[in-house]
């Protein structure tokens, strides 16, 4: 496998009670793969990091998985890190899960909204009996279950 230059850099907010060992364990884990710099600022409760090396693609995943885990465990907000691989720049979103999920969900919400706001969509309502075999006519955008009173 071909090796290329990889750099992951940035900084993140961390919990007040993070311990030196939490940071050192990341350094120990990744030191065999790349050059690791981690700096903990105890006043602002942040960690700045830079991980760089000429490595194979599989090692990039190992590094990013480890940093994702560290950020999940110790980060207090979502964070965007800068990742450069083989001259290509990208963003890596890590940290507090719901912040990351928010950013990822944005695309999905946008798509859903576009469908719901298409002309006439409001009036395309099909009633189905519970448990009945619905006949599929095209793709359903949204399904809603309602309790209805029994009519005699």
């Amino acid at each position, binding site marked *: 496998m071909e090796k290329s230059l990889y750099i992951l850099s940035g900084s993140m907010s961390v919990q007040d009670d993070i311990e030196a060992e939490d940071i050192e364990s990341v350094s120990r884990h990744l030191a065999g793969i790349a050059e690791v710099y981690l700096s903990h600022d105890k006043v602002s409760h942040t960690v700045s990091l830079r991980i760089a090396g000429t490595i194979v693609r599989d090692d990039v995943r190992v590094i990013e998985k480890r940093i994702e885990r560290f950020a999940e465990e110790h980060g207090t907000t979502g964070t965007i890190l800068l990742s450069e691989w083989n001259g290509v720049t990208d963003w890596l979103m890590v940290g507090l899960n719901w912040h990351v999920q928010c950013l990822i969900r944005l695309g999905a*919400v946008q798509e859903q909204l576009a469908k719901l706001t298409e002309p006439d969509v409001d009036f395309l309502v099909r009633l189905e009996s519970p448990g009945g075999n619905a006949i599929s006519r095209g793709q359903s955008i949204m399904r*809603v279950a309602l309790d209805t009173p029994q009519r005699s």
Partner: protein
Amino acid sequence: MATNYEIRGALPVRADFKHIHAQQFAESIARPAHVYFATDALTHSLVLRVRGALQQDEQQSVEDALKQFAGRWASSGAIFSRLRYGDPSFVPLGLASHVDLLAELDDLHAQLNAVLERQAFMLKQFLAPDQ
């Protein structure tokens, strides 16, 4: 007076950002706020903590200054932690497009909820056709 306001976090900054830029910014918002900052040239980061016993307009001017500064120097979006009168919240800062994404997400959620409420209302009309 006890501290009633704190905002802190780490901002990824552009490669041409210098320590003096952070120092000038810190001086511009200091008093009555207490400002702590550190820059890291290796990771291109500025870490910051601003706190103090601040009136509401002073809190606002700190955040306005921070947003303007972050808009000028940030290399990506960042989420800062804020504590106002003991109440925690988040503040998106930095690269405008990233901040816009976070703000847009809020807006889209509001729009989507409105559409869903309207559909729920219409479905209820099916339940009570005689009214």
